[in-house]
């Protein structure tokens, strides 16, 4: 019999491996979307593709990596894998699971010729080719326009890079240096995972490693089931819509029925509308990943995630919906729809779980691809960034101002000083948007405005979802404000204000204003204590008119 303390120590050793992979990858990357946005994740899975431990920069990748490992097992089988192999996939309808920009790399780990685990990571590559720079666009009509597809293929065979594939990759992307740099950083992280697992095997032996893995998974399940018991049992329902696919499909209705029992959590999206023409389609793997986030968020947000935790979770949705799009549907802005899937679960459960959930937040990743140039070298440069916005108020708290959406996480906003050094723009303004919205006994957090002034020609493509209605309120609060992209031209063209802009040409002096929504309020604004209203007024967070009309503050003197 194994002594329980050795097992605990081994578990603690396993848990830090993903973290080390994560740091290795981030520090050696050449793309801001990796080292500033941290749009990547690293994990170790069992030899059966069960998640053992994961390190995340963003929430969206939680639990998504295991599907990629499963694909590798399905395609190659254990016998088709060798030490030193690294396999890549980005197919949205299969294990890749999001859009082509997110590339998963998977490395089987062998010990004494036995497959014992996988090191896996998934990262957003700034460029994977396709019709538009940055590989994300609003008007693609099939996946072939969105970039290179890696159908679960070996990039490295027995430790050696497959030159043909890498050459092919290099000529099909617009920024081969950073794309390949990121690929090597990802491979380096896989190798760190492999090395550490082998070291553990040397010290503890295979049998103990297997025992530790099953113990970690069982522990996860135990924690999830214990947390599940504390949730309110019953059936909950919500419906909403995906507002626009950018191709004139119009609104797509979506809905969810959540059933919570003592030992199961079922999210059933049956009744959701068909897949769209434009690139906002979400696929099944992304939907599953979205539900894993919601499940952990409402059960036990701070426990280390592993496959065991998700054992009580079931996700139901027919094929071919906007949540489960089929080939060759375009998916490059899939996150807009994935976030709506999460948000309807949030809406359904918010009223019964105030200790876990706030009112609605600005929801979208609000990401733009601003094509400009490097001010020093004149080379083309793509400013790709997600934007922070306002979060909803809670039962006992104001919403948070300027924070990344639920799909992001350990994501950093771009420093204006760094932006002006790297890109040929001037940042005129970066601060809270204080226009009316989100009022309540507890107020929604403020969205942000960032204004870029172009110093040379360029263009912009962006998708800011939830641009029609603002974040939803709770218990009589006011809704938040919508997200928007505004473009003001210096040559007299009519200004644009929209949730989606596609390849709008920009000239020197044009202004791009990225506006994110304020979160929803909680409770009747008239119940907000006047001391707090006065404080908001002094801080310039609200205007005198709102203080008087919405909050009922008596004019003094």
């Amino acid at each position, binding site marked *: 019999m194994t002594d329980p303390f050795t097992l605990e120590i081994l578990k603690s050793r396993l848990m830090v491996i993903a973290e080390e992979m994560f740091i290795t990858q981030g520090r*050696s990357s050449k793309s801001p979307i990796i*080292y500033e946005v941290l749009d990547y994740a690293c994990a170790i899975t069992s030899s059966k593709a069960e998640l053992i431990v994961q390190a995340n920069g963003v929430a969206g990748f939680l639990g998504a990596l295991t599907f990629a490992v499963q694909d590798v097992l399905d395609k190659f089988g254990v016998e088709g894998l060798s030490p030193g192999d690294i396999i890549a996939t980005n197919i949205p309808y299969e294990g890749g699971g999001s859009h082509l920009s997110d590339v998963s790399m998977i490395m089987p780990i062998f010990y004494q010729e036995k497959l014992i685990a996988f090191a896996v990571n998934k990262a957003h590559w700034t460029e994977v080719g396709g019709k538009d720079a940055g590989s994300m666009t609003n008007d693609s009509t099939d996946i072939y326009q969105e970039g290179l597809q890696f159908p679960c293929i070996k990039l490295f065979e027995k430790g050696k890079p497959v030159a043909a594939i890498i050459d092919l990759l290099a000529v099909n992307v617009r920024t081969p240096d950073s794309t390949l740099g990121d690929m090597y950083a990802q491979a380096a992280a896989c190798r760190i995972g492999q090395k550490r697992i082998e070291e553990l095997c040397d010290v503890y032996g295979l049998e103990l490693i297997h025992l530790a893995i099953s113990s970690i998974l069982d522990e996860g399940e135990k924690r999830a089931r214990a947390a599940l018991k504390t949730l309110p049992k019953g059936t909950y329902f919500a419906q909403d819509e995906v507002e626009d696919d950018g191709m004139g499909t119009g609104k797509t209705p979506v809905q969810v029925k959540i059933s919570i029992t003592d030992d199961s959590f079922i999210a059933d999206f049956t009744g959701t509308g068909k897949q769209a023409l434009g690139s906002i389609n979400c696929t099944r793997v992304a939907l599953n990943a979205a539900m894993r986030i919601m499940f952990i968020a409402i059960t036990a947000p701070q426990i280390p995630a592993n496959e065991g935790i998700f054992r009580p979770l079931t996700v139901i949705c027919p094929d071919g919906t906007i949540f489960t799009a089929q080939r060759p549907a375009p998916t490059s802005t899939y996150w807009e729809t994935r976030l709506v899937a999460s948000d309807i679960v949030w809406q359904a459960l918010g009223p019964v779980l105030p200790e876990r959930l706030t009112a609605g937040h600005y929801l979208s990743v609000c990401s733009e691809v601003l094509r400009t140039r490097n001010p020093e070298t004149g080379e083309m440069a793509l400013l790709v960034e997600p934007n922070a916005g306002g979060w909803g108020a809670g039962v006992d708290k104001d919403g948070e101002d300027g*924070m990344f959406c639920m799909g992001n*996480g350990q994501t950093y906003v771009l420093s204006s*000083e760094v932006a002006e*050094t790297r890109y040929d723009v001037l940042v005129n303004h970066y601060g809270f948007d204080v226009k009316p919205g989100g009022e309540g006994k507890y107020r929604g957090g403020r969205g942000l405005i960032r204004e870029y002034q172009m110093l040379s020609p360029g263009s912009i493509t962006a998708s800011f979802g939830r641009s029609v209605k603002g974040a939803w309120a709770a218990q009589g609060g006011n809704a938040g404000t919508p997200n928007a992209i505004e473009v003001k031209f210096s040559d007299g063209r009519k200004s644009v204000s929209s949730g989606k802009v596609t390849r709008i040409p920009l000239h020197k002096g044009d202004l791009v204003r990225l506006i994110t929504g304020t979160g929803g309020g909680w409770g009747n604004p008239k119940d907000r204590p006047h001391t707090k209203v006065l404080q908001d007024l002094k801080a310039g967070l609200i205007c005198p008119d709102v203080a008087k009309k919405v909050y009922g503050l008596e004019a003094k003197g």
Partner: protein
Amino acid sequence: MKLATDIGGTFTDLVYLDEASGELGTTKSSSTPPNFAQGILDTITKANLDAKAVAHFVHGTTVVINALTEHKGAKTALITTKGFRDVLAIARANRPDIYNLRFKKQPAFVPREYRYEVEERLDYKGEVLTPLNEADVAKIAAELKAEGIEAVAVAFLHSYANPVHEKYCAELLKKHLPDMFVTSSSDITKEWREYERSNTAVLNSYVQPVASSYVQNLENALRDMGVKSGLHIMKSNGGTNTFELSKQQPIHLVESGPVGGVIGAKAIGDLIGEKNIITMDVGGTTAKTSLIEDGVVKFTTNYYIEKDPFNPGYPIKVPVVDIVEIGAGGGSIAHIDDAGALKIGPQSAGAVPGPACYGQGGDKPTVTDANLVLQRINPDYFLGGQMQVDPELSKKAYTPIAESFDVSVEEAALGVVRLADANMVNAIKLVSVRRGYDPRDFALVAFGGGGAMHAASLAKELNIGKVIIPFATGTFSALGMLMTEPMQDFIRTKVLPGDENGLAQVRDILTEMNTEAADFMRAAGYPEAKFSFKPYIDMRYVGQEHTVRVPADELNLAKLESQFHDLHEQAYTFRLESPVQFVNYLVTITVSQDPVDLSRFKPKAGNNAKPKAQRQVYFEGGWQDTAIYERSDLPLGQKIAGPCIIEEPQTITVVHKGMQAWIDEIGNIVIDTGVGHER
């Protein structure tokens, strides 16, 4: 006479060196919050020292970190570039607690109503686009006065490239408000990224009134006692500042306390020829580890307060010795979590109620209790016998864990010690393996109350061949401070191509920085003959963000490049063909001091020290009859074999089976763990 004082939550330590007689002594006194200066004066009185003979005084203080973590600083305002007042509150907008949909951001230290905007603008090259609007500053000055603001920070965009507007704004403020504490961000750091630099300036302002009055009071009290000159405060970078500079830039004191031990370990390494050292300082609530490579203490400007896995923390961009701290000290509590897993810390029993064995009402099993159950700690010799501890209470505290895992109480206690060791090993890996160093190339220097108990097993786990338990273990931090030197780091950001043209500009920048550094130290009153300069360049591959720090003693392009490729590969496992860039420039100026004479610690000669006792001690494998030695009985060089325990009033050293221990020529205990490789 040289004095060093280190103030802890419980005790104030004093170490003194009388150069005339060669006497090196230590004394302890209770800390006296909130008037900490009194505790210092008490130790001087207790040691019966002649204050008039003090020529060099070094002080480690927690006043800055306490003001920050308790949020008890001044009413502070921020003045920033028009359009950017919310940068301080947006911070970097990250949510480390990524699945928590009710996450709470840590609030800015300056609320929105006290964040003011001024019309002015520079571009990224530091060229003026819009001149500073003086009328804006005058208007704000009037508001600061009306609002009762005590301290103000000025942080403008791109001030790292050109501080002209910040300097002018600060000047105008001083004219309008002569008594106001004013900090310009570029005076503290010249690194880019507006949020981090602004926050650093704000926190300097926030602590300035309280820190400067603390320093002033201490200065007055010392002068009243007769100390005339040589007053220094320990800085986070491992050097010292004058009292005057400490009042202007108190943020440099944020880790004033903990760095003393690291500097002490380096000094000991210098004396005995160990250039590569990993330190392990195990105190009551935490264990701290740091790495010294080739005699150089590593520092970082990626320092945060209140940062943890679930909170982003507040960045402070000043050089801080690179220390990793984990919640595994003697008082850390072992517990079984909801899913049945054994965990240690971060909760600590602290000094009150303390570990269960203290009998002061604590009933939670701590690491100290585990060491007592295993009979590694001698209950009759705790703090040299000054404190009564009860092993039965420790056993009682461990009973629930033993029952839960269905093992004996001793096995449970050993499990906890092993898990604490594993946590410390993980921390050591963070400063070594994770940064590309192989622990086998280092010696482990362990100190603090618990360091010597755990060091040998940590070393074995990490394949470290040599462990050093220094003399004066209990007051080691203060001893380290005695050996520090005045030191200031200068850092600038300017991205330049990694070619000869770029290097020519780098040469100009470094020359300018050397002049700035020398002017700075001269102004602080130090003699130029003692100055030494150490330059570094942070380099990266074009397109990367993170940098690698390269020593730049020789500004030769080929040499810098090849060093960079090697260091990059060491840190990140690979190198690229890509071109490189220069990013940040660092100059560390040090004012050298006369070395501290440690000959007093020379142990006696002999070769026949006998154990003072035998007792049963629990190791892996069960109870073993174990020899117990008194440290002061051991003569120079006599080798004793493990398993054995070496006791001294302030700690115990555990030597495991298969290891050998002896006393070296300056009184350190050296353990050969038998697992190392030839170095």
